């Protein structure tokens, strides 16, 4: 349709996309400032129309950011190199999915996408709680608008993706090659932002609660689903990041304790602690200040993480770019830190609750321990990540704090957590009957011993690996026991079939059993990580065509070298046949990709993933005439369980937030039933 194309061309000539985008973000910035002021004034002066207009601003911003993002995607897809961001990451040679995904591949686009997610969360959270929560809700909206204002300010200022490029280049360099190698790149950042940004909502309501003086549990109840949903996305994002590193980086690992990995992990740790300690607050009215501190820390850690990776304070694999944006973030973090701390400490006397628990041996205590371990874990990771900075400030010397440190310090904590994951579900609320407890722990205890012995028999000699296997089995049995008990009770009471009993069990107590499912997922991840690192078998070999190499049960044969020229890169690959006991089971193609303008090639390892182990081949080097090639041959057991476990965790969280029809509603006259004595 030449006419339409002509009109589009005309639009592009005028730079309409740019203008639309700029207008959208600038308006959004203005509206967010307005909304923030209107909300605060409306709450203080009790002016409903001001509050309503603040809400309207939030809704409008969602639309504006959507428009800006659509405009950017349009500019990317049509290769409009007059737009600054497109000139930075666009390329005619990139496949379509890479072009769309490059929206979040560099700083400016990622902030634009962040703005979209934030505006959407703000709008939905405001809509769902409108007129229900009084001043607290209004202050929450104000907080979300304040955070939005910061990000829109970045978009209008130092991270403006809609800058003008003149003269207009014909082509662009494309996004970072590391980001073009795998489809998971399309998935990891959106998940991460949905998780990160999602934490803004419970934080906003916590601030709202403190500002409004509503220091009871209402803010927790209102935001529970938001927190669990954000946590679910964050868990999936970390999983996707690990999977992507594994498939792309070539060293067969999935976690390097790189600062940006730590940046995503720390809020996850505090959020997980929070998910547990709020249960203590709900049941006991205790730990109110602690919970407010936890959610504030979670939010702060998300911003700190973003700051660390975008400001050049710490060097990292992920570091986007440096520049004035660091100062903006620092000021923003300072404001949040000060406001939160002032509110928390100022309200501390009002937040003191009558702390009472029935007995030390109870789920309450386990949750306290859970929080302790998670706090120490977060502190350790934060300290390790920031220590190079501290050491340079104090000693003037550059030091590195890398994987060996983090592994050494956190592995014992992980073992403790695995133990708690088992003990928590087993211990009832309030007080445990010691006889019942001992009975319940027999089978798990046996599982612990069996697993540890099996691990030892298989060759594990590391004490922590054995403990991990043991506690994992212990925890698995404990959590499964809860299902068994619950299903049995239902069947006895209602005579339901096994399937129906399980389904109804979930439906009636989705929060609890969803949580146990998440536990099981976590155990799968722990076992996968322990097994793949303990029993990992790595060799390096230089092979000539036709030569074979044996590693464990696999024999590989290097067939030949091939080369492929693609628009954005030149790839050299090896064809390798895989045999198990003389029977060919597949072919793998590890390759090296040479991107234009980069010195070192980017490897694409070839992975054959099975339930029990992965065969991982990486092409290290080759002779140009194809006479030989050097490979890393890696056999890692149970890697699949890490990814599968991650999905199970997310499934558990999802089940926990689904709205279920309650079988019974609130009955204030009813005495809470004691925990049944087990079956």
């Amino acid at each position, binding site marked *: 349709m030449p006419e339409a194309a002509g009109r589009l061309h005309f639009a592009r000539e005028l730079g309409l996309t740019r203008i639309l985008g700029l207008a959208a973000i600038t308006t959004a910035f203005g509206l967010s400032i307005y909304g923030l002021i209107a909300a605060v004034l409306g709450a203080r002066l009790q002016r409903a129309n001001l509050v309503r207009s603040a809400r309207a601003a939030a809704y409008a911003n969602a639309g504006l950011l959507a428009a800006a993002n659509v405009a950017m995607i349009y500019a990317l897809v049509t290769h409009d190199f007059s737009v600054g961001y497109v000139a930075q990451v666009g390329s005619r040679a990139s496949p379509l999915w890479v072009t769309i995904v490059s929206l979040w591949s560099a700083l400016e686009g990622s902030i634009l996408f962040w703005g979209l997610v934030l505006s959407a969360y703000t709008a939905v959270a405001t809509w769902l709680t409108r007129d229900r929560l009084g001043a607290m809700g209004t202050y929450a909206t104000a907080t979300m608008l304040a955070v939005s204002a910061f990000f829109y300010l970045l978009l209008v200022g130092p991270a403006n993706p809609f800058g003008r490029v003149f003269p207009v280049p014909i082509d662009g360099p494309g996004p970072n090659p590391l980001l073009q190698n795998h489809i998971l790149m399309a998935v990891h950042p959106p998940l991460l932002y949905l998780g990160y940004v999602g934490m803004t909502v419970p934080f906003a309501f916590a601030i709202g609660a403190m500002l409004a003086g509503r220091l009871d549990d209402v803010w927790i109840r209102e935001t529970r689903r938001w927190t669990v949903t954000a946590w679910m996305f964050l868990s999936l994002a970390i999983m996707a990041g690990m999977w992507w590193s594994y498939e792309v980086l070539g060293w067969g690992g999935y976690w390097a304790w790189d600062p940006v990995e730590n940046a995503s992990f720390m809020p996850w740790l505090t959020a997980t602690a929070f998910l547990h300690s709020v249960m203590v607050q709900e049941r006991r009215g205790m730990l109110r200040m602690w919970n407010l501190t936890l959610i504030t820390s979670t939010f702060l850690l998300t911003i700190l993480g973003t700051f660390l990776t975008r400001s050049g*304070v710490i*060097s990292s694999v992920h570091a986007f770019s440096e520049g004035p944006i660091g100062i903006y973030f*620092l000021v923003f973090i*300072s404001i949040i830190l000060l406001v939160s701390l*002032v509110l928390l400490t100022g309200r501390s006397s009002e937040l003191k609750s009558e702390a009472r628990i029935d007995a030390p041996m109870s789920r309450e205590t386990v949750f306290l321990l859970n929080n302790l371990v998670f706090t120490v874990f977060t502190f350790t990771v934060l300290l390790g990540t920031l220590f190079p900075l501290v050491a340079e400030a104090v000693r003037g010397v550059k030091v590195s704090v890398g994987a060996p440190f983090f592994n050494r310090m956190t592995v014992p904590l992980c073992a403790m957590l695995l133990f708690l994951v088992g003990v928590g579900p087993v211990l009832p609320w309030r007080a445990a009957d010691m006889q019942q407890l001992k009975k319940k722990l027999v089978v798990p205890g046996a599982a612990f011993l069996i697993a540890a012995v099996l691990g030892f028999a298989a060759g594990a000699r590391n004490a922590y690996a054995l403990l991990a296997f043991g506690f994992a089995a212990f925890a698995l049995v404990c959590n499964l026991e809860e299902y068994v008990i619950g299903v049995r009770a239902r069947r006895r009471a209602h005579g339901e079939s096994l399937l129906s009993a399980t389904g109804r069990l979930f439906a009636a107590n989705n929060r609890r059993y969803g949580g146990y499912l998440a536990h099981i997922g976590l155990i799968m991840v722990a076992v996968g990580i322990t097994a793949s690192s303990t029993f990992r078998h790595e060799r390096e070999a230089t092979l000539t065509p036709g030569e074979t190499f044996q590693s464990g049960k696999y024999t590989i044969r290097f067939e030949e070298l091939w080369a492929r020229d693609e628009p954005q890169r030149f790839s050299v690959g090896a064809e390798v046949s895989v045999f198990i006991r003389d029977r060919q089971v597949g072919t793998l193609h590890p390759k090296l990709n040479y991107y234009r303008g980069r010195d070192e090639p980017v490897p694409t390892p070839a992975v054959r993933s099975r339930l029990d182990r992965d065969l991982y081949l990486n092409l290290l080097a080759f002779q140009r005439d194809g006479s030989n090639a050097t490979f890393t041959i890696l056999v890692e057991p149970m890697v699949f369980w890490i990814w599968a476990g991650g999905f199970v965790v997310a499934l558990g969280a999802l089940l926990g937030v689904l709205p279920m029809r309650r079988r019974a509603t609130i009955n204030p006259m009813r005495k809470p039933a004691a925990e049944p004595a087990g079956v």
Partner: protein
Amino acid sequence: MNWKRSLSGIGVALPIIALLGYGLTLDPRSLPNALPGSPAPEFALAVMDVPSDTVRLRDHAGQVLVLNFWASWCLECRHEHRILSETAEAYAGKDVVFYGVLYNDSPDNARSWIQEMGGQSYSNLLDNGTRMAIDYGLTGVPETVIISPEGQVVHKQIGVVTEALLRTKLDSLLAVRTAPQ
């Protein structure tokens, strides 16, 4: 709302902010430079194009030695090539010796590169296995090491050298040499 208590909150926040602010002043990509101030490590490398010839550090005792690590695939090396060649010529008679040390590259590539760049006024050494480079704490190319006549490393430049830097360092080293005893 207890305002006095909230002051303690501010007391916690300030050191953290100060630390992060300090971090902003640093360059995360800067690499540590441990070699200057220590004696230059001994080496024995073959000369490119004259394989029978070996150059050792001690052959140049009493002379200022400039070692430039480079490769033909190194983009930044192109920027400093002219500076190095011209400075080498300018200081030719003054007991200042320049060598290029090839890093992770083949002599054929090196020769084509030199030809493409219009020649080089000093010879190149081949560092097979990168042992000598590692001994000199190499973190990449280009890097330039300046060694005093007494065999001390006085400067290690990570990245391209400027003419001003080279001349200043060389002049100060030569001035020390010719100072009255």
